[in-house]
């Protein structure tokens, strides 16, 4: 109990981040899979806690009670070789406990893993790249990066999001602790997971399978929108990029340098797929997979020297003059 209670208390009280939206605590679930896991966890913690209390007491008692005293007579204690009845007891009782744990676990595995996909579900394909996330909504015609938008789901009108997980390079793992357990993204091995967040807001996570140099900065943000917000977001994302003559110079630089080899801007010649789609770059709060906030200064710094923000990222330093850099940044901030 004390192990379970201690861990729980510590993680719930002392571990609380100052800003609750920053929390990635697995014991603060807000989606069905995370909830089911939480309830199973409590059962497992209670059982293991009870075992701990019993065995620890026996150990502490043995050491305290049977330690050699200062006034010991020097004789050997009674030589006991074993007892079949006792052995039987401490074989059968653990078997029964294990059986309970097994059955409870098997039930939750099925309820999460084999949950049927309801007709109203949103389908998203998440593709892991060294060191960023690509999100595609095949039915809605939307492509975005690093910041996943999904509608809130309430029990009356369930709109869960079902994700197909793919990888473009090495293994990654999709983990947003308050929404669901993790599932790996493995090349040549499509995986599936689902979430149905019950409150709007921002949920944080990050890649949980070592994927190379910048595994640490492959952060993940899930925005849970109200149905109206989500609809509006989809409409915005479906539009091609807005042309703006005031930034024609920056656009020219973008389209005539290596940028287009990796990045796409819908409605222009840029159709690279190695890096994030930039059609609606400024609709995102962060760049470099959640590492820096998305503003003109950071964009400029990122293009000039990605290593200053995320050493080891696969974005090359573009070696532009200050003038070109300013023009390019000015173009990028119009991609709303």
């Amino acid at each position, binding site marked *: 109990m004390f192990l379970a209670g201690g861990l729980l208390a510590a993680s719930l009280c002392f571990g609380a981040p100052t800003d609750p939206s920053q929390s990635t605590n697995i014991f603060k679930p807000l989606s069905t*899979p995370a909830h089911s896991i939480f309830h*199973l*966890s409590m059962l497992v913690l209670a059982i293991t806690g009870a075992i701990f209390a019993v065995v620890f007491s026996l150990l502490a008692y043995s050491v305290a009670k049977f330690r050699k005293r200062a006034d010991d007579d020097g004789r050997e204690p009674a030589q006991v070789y074993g007892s079949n009845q006792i052995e039987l007891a401490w074989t059968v009782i653990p078997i029964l406990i294990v059986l309970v744990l097994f059955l409870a676990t098997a039930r939750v595995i099925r309820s999460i893993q084999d949950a049927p996909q309801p007709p109203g579900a949103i389908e998203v394909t998440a593709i892991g790249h060294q060191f960023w996330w690509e999100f595609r909504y095949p039915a809605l015609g939307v492509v975005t990066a690093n910041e996943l938008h999904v509608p809130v789901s309430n029990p009356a009108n369930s709109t869960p999001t079902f994700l197909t997980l793919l990888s473009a390079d090495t293994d990654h793992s999709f983990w947003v602790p308050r929404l669901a357990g*993790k599932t790996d993204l493995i090349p040549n091995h499509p995986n599936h997971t689902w979430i149905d967040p019950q409150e709007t807001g921002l949920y944080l996570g990050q890649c949980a399978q070592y994927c190379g140099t910048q595994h640490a900065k492959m952060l993940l943000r899930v925005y849970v929108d109200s149905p109206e917000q989500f609809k509006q977001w989809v409409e915005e994302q479906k539009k091609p990029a807005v042309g703006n003559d005031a930034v024609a110079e920056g656009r020219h630089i973008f389209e005539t340098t290596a940028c287009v080899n990796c990045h796409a801007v819908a409605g222009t010649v840029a159709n690279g797929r190695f890096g994030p789609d930039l059609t609606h770059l400024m609709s995102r709060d962060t760049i470099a997979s959640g590492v820096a906030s998305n503003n003109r200064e950071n964009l400029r710094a990122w293009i000039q020297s990605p290593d200053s923000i995320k050493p*080891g990222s696969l974005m090359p330093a573009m070696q532009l003059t200050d003038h070109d850099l300013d023009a390019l940044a000015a173009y990028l901030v119009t991609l709303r």
Partner: protein
Amino acid sequence: MSSETIALSTVGPDARPIGERLHDWVVTVDHKKLGILYILYALFFFVVGGVEALIMRIQLIVPHNHFVSPEVFNRMMTMHGTTMIFFMVMPVLFGFGTYLIPLMIGARDMAFPRLNAFSFWMTAFGGLLLYFSFIGGNGLYGAGTAPEVGWWAYAPLSSRAFSVGHSTDFWTLAVLATGVGSVGTGVNFIATILCMRCPGMTLGKMPLLAWLNLVVGGMVIFGISPLTAAQIMLCIDRYLGGHFFDTQAGGSAVLWMHFFWIFGHPEVYILVVPAFAFVSEIVPVFSRKPIFGYPIMVAATIAIGFISFSVWAHHMYTVGMSSYGNTFFVFTTMAIAVPTGIKIFNWLGTMWGGKIQLRVPMLFCIGFLFQFLIAGLTGIMLGATPFNWQLSGSYFVVAHFHYVIVGGIVFALFGAFYYWYPKMSGRMYNETLGKWHFWLFIIGFHLTFDFMHIPGILGMPRRIYTYEPGRGWETWNSIVTIGAFFQAAGILVFVVNLLWSLRKGEPAGNDPWDAWTLEWSTSSPPPDYDFAATPVVRSRRPLWDLKHPEDPDWKYE
């Protein structure tokens, strides 16, 4: 057994020049010398791996720290894991096994002394090969680099596309070479234990240490082979254009995981069963009682040996197996908790009603029991698939397996060091320094690994070189790092104790613990031939029989 055995086996100091004596160590096929070589070699890598751990912990003491670059951190993480598993814990356990098994079964050497030497030198060569990557990883003209693929070297990160240069090849070849050595040791353990026992020592009268190492020998042969096969396949992929694990050409990343973990999980038991063996020898002697339930202890070990080969995919719950696959591995994983639990209960049964002497070896064994209990329980949490979907790949897992390996295996190992040091060196260790070591290390251990569970629950993944502030991870990481330095201080005291006692320790005599197994019937350190006359035994505790002729064990067994 005659009393002559003891009288005949005293050895004088070696007066030959140092060059000749060192030459002896290099060409030796003596199980005692090879055992000590294994142990010293492992201690060296223990320090190296420990320094790598400290570098990682300094980097993680605060968020967004710049102590090392991500590349260096990832190398440290890979080298720490590989070093500690393959070049510290395995060799040190093989070292104790090689040293003790012949002495405990009344033999004069291992069944295959030259294979024994070959195995050690293969392992030693593997370690050198791994660390040569620091010089040769980028080619000699480059600055050198260690592998940065993690100690599992998951595909396709280990393919040529993602691991350029030779660092991953050094890793592969090092693990392959060591694997060959380990299989040799496994074969040798089995042959020695089955064929070299002294008259009267039936299988049912072997010390538990011999029994447990017999099981380890079997697990090594069947557990290491898939790993060696996988390394050969990886070499074929990297150099001969094979596509076993090359996902860009249709290979399978999951195949590597299966190969790795069908080695990886039995490996946990290959490491922990010898630790069980130490505890099964030390706890009875310091409780002054025979081991409780000897036949059940043997049966539980054999059960662990078999079941350990059916649980590997519990390392792969997040890989996307079917719900039926996941359920099967929950069953086997939960099942292995039963024989493991039985072992803990039997050790408690041994202590119950005894007269427990709290000497340093026993203190470490009590620490082992406490920590191994918790490690087992967090193991059950991780075994429950859905809970695992949250916990795997997080710091909770890192805390769990360090609880097993440090809290369990390393504690039992320190117990073994203090218990058999008098036999190996002929001198007693310093009890005060030993207690300092124990308390510094156990405080450091709990500061580090108790608090490491919490950031895992709070969503902190493992293998990240830095982390974001504001998620409630900062305090825990600072405490963890402070604990690591307490552990390092404990290790320092331990090393000082070993060196100091070698010259200044009290002479130990043949049997300083009033113990019961055959190694204590010969001199300390034992002569080259171990026993002047082959001992004959009638029970599991031959020296008890000798010391208590009025109440010998063989009347009851």
